[in-house]
């Protein structure tokens, strides 16, 4: 699975996710990536893209929950990502990237690694795996 989340200089957020799904999956199986609110979500507050065990991400409505805890619990972006990865996945394994309208980037995963890269206008750039 691959994904990208962006907030532009006007504070507009967007998210996109694309995948081949799971190796050896049944034909016709649909995962979290195309489900708005599960694998992908964007609103006025943030943009989120998820990856990992699709069934766990769907049940946890993971991407929407980041926006929800920001909106209703007043959490910041990284705190919202950490909360959702910790509290919404049950036994599932997954990861996510996120941006906020304030120009922040966030990331969280409970797997052993996640292929990821970040950049912000003030010059921060990071590419990581573990």
């Amino acid at each position: 699975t691959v994904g990208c989340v962006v907030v532009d200089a006007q504070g507009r957020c967007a998210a996109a996710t694309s995948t081949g799904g799971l190796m050896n999956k049944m034909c016709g199986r649909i995962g979290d990536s195309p489900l708005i609110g599960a694998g992908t979500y964007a609103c006025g507050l943030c943009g989120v893209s998820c990856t990992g065990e699709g069934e766990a991400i769907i049940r946890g409505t993971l991407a929407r929950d980041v926006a929800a805890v920001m909106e209703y619990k007043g959490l910041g972006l990284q705190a919202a990502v950490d909360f959702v990865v910790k509290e919404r996945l049950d036994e599932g394994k997954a990861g996510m990237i996120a941006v906020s309208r304030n120009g922040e980037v966030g990331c969280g995963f409970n797997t052993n690694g996640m292929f990821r890269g970040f950049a912000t206008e003030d010059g921060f750039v990071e590419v990581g795996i573990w």
Partner: protein
Amino acid sequence: MVGWAIAVHGGAGVDPNLPHHRQEEAKQVLARCLNMGISALRSSLPAVDVVELVVRELESDPVFNSGRGSALTEKGTAEMEASIMDGVGRRCGAVSGVTTVKNPISLARLVMDKSPHSYLAFAGAEEFARLHGAEVVDNDYFITEDNKGMLKLAKEANTIMFDYRIPTVLSDTCGASVENPLQMNGLPISVYAPE
């Protein structure tokens, strides 16, 4: 006015024995896609155009599980899905079960912009792609030798695997010479031998 920001991912759940050269290869793809997004943002492209642009690039590179290099179904075919969402107005588009569309994310964008719906799947999505001139290719385009090998492994282990890259040459990463029938997470224990 805020500063722009961008994040990309290539999947969670990484094989602990992923050879170093494969790790470097993955990092180079991520850095290249990140730089594409940064240039687009510096050119004041709207966020929704930037995420589509970057995911298209990730789909076109076989290193990650999407587009070319997609994980394979039990039948050895590629069946892809994608979604896109614009925070402005919370507009969205999604597709599933596409087998010939070169860039599924751009088809999802077309669903968002050119259809009255937010999600099209399988035959309907393929028909919509042709109606709107999305680039289509044979399913073979998406299938790589690596993934054929991984599908074989998954079938031998009788499991369904997540975004997982298992080294194609097990011998140079797993010391176990005798095949141990023990399984962990649905995979032969030999995959984890170094740990």
